[in-house]
């Protein structure tokens, strides 16, 4: 089965969110770039399915020319083919993104991808809709939030968390599925995988930007993320003070009960 996986290049922010002076973007001068863990898991899942059933994995991203790096990262994980819908770096909204991807799939041959996987939501914009809008554009069934899936013939069974348990869906292929981290444990790229990815040819297309109904005015970092922790002490010497704080917070009681019950030996 040939599977298409959608990924998005996002800054790899560490301990602190820093914005550009105009407040329009995350300052990426000191950060690397990555894809969301959801998407990495989607690629891993696709690779595992093709390892069982045969076929290929194509990764597609809409982004700036540099997003080819993220496609190569995914090729190193075992994907076979990379497609870049190249932008001029402007932010694209979900409606335009889904339309551009649908058009590209039309050209790549829609029948070629009975299964399309997307990360559940993009790490940065968190719009939660490109996969679903794409499914509607292609007239396919879609389910999101998926933590486990099984492909059997033309049928796909998918599970997601619901209310402390799970709910199950059955979809006829071709279908679109939004995947969450935890569906698998992605492998580390192998050395041959990395070499292959480095040499791989990335297919480039250039869709035209379109305005979306949602327009960003500015970004800001939430207040309250710059306090300073009160240091209770160093090493084991801090334990009496720590116990006092835990007592004040009111979380020490269960221990006393457990001891009294004798449930904790």
């Amino acid at each position, binding site marked *: 089965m040939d599977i298409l996986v959608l990924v998005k290049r996002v800054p790899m*922010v560490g*301990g602190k969110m820093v914005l550009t002076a105009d407040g329009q973007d995350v300052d990426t001068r000191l950060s690397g770039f990555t894809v969301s863990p959801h998407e990495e898991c989607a690629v891993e899942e696709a690779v595992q399915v093709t390892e069982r059933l045969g076929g290929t994995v194509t990764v597609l991203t809409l982004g700036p020319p540099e997003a080819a790096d993220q496609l190569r990262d995914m090729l190193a994980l075992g994907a076979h083919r990379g497609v870049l819908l190249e932008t001029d770096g402007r932010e694209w909204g979900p409606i335009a993104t889904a339309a551009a991807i649908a058009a590209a799939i039309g050209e790549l041959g829609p029948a070629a991808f009975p299964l399309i996987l997307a990360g559940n939501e993009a790490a940065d914009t968190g719009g939660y809709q490109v996969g679903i809008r794409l499914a509607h554009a292609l007239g396919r069934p879609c389910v999101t939030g998926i933590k486990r899936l099984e492909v059997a013939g033309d049928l796909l069974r998918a599970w997601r968390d619901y209310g402390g*348990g799970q709910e199950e869906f059955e979809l006829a292929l071709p279908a679109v599925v939004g995947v969450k981290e935890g569906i698998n*444990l992605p492998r580390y790229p192998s050395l041959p995988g990395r070499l292959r990815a480095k040499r791989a040819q990335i297919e480039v297309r250039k869709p035209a930007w379109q305005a979306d109904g949602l327009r960003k005015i500015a970004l800001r970092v939430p207040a309250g993320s710059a306090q300073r922790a009160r240091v209770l002490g160093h090493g*084991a010497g801090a334990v009496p003070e720590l116990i006092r704080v835990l007592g004040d*917070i009111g979380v020490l009681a269960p221990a*006393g009960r457990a001891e009294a019950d004798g449930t904790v030996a």
Partner: protein
Amino acid sequence: MSGPVLCLVEVDDGEIAGPSQRALAVARSLASGPARADPERADPASAGLPADGGLTAVVFATLGGPADRAAADLAGQGVTELCVVASGELTCYAPVAWARAIEQLIAARSAAAVVAAATDRGAEVLAHLGALTGLPVAANCVAATATSDQNWRLLRHRWAGSLLEDAILAAPVALLTVAADAVAADAVADDGAVPEPASASPDASGQVVAPVSGGAMIPAADMPVTTFAPALQAADLRVRATQSAGQGGGMSLATARVVVGGGRGVGGPDGFAALEELAGLLGGVVGVSRVVTSQGWRPHRQQVGQTGTKISPELYLACGISGAIQHMAGCQSAKHIVAVNTDPDAPIMSRAEYAVIGDLNEVIPALVAAIRAAGGQE
């Protein structure tokens, strides 16, 4: 805007689900017109337009209808109509069918906006609704105001709340989801009376705070309960939950009162025994960072963060965790954060309330011993 604001409400065990409470707070602020004066944010020339269509709670009757308890709670949330969507075909959750029903309800009520919690279901249904109607969807909002007929001023989360975005939505009907883990909306007065509809205004940290106290009293009985039977096609029911099963047992990370966190600093799978022991003593559970799950030290269901579980404990004791924004996005609702870290300059030091500087392999066993000793003395 003139029609009602529709709010998709998820009912959990007969009660309004927590995330839906927050969605209701934002929906209520939209339905009640001008946002509270917020000199920092609001543009005086474009203060919200008053709405007169009320607030309609939309509940899908897949499980035999909402319990009376939920209905009473809804009346206490400023809801002016409870609309129960019911149809013979809708026996279980079906995302496109739910979206189709809301699409028809928008037309039937001339609705001005649709608001849902950004849960798996809420986010999914609104995205389908966006696709069916061709309308944009603004996800993970924390506040919304109508500024003119087709314009909406929004504040929304990016990066799971690590960043806030001021945005304008241009649409004849606003489709919004509300960040599911934003701080709980205040409950309304115990007597079930509705205070004057108040606006949900995000505080400086971008959390929804819904001030609802004092004001006009509307008895619960005044909230009409209507039913709506959507016209569904077979294609709308193509995808549906065929089975839902609770696993039960075990304390949930999402709701635990104490979470003992372990990160890369734990050093390996064996290091978690001490954290488990401590969590047991404190009546809590262990949560971990992504490094820990991607190393395979612990299962992903224990991961706290943007792509893991969002927690809201009384105490989060984060051991050997640096405090990356994607991790902290999962514990914004923790009441108290205590960090144990060898590095006094780790980013978590600016997010925690208290810190112990030191090796967790020394601090945690000493803490366990001290708690045991104290327990023994009781």
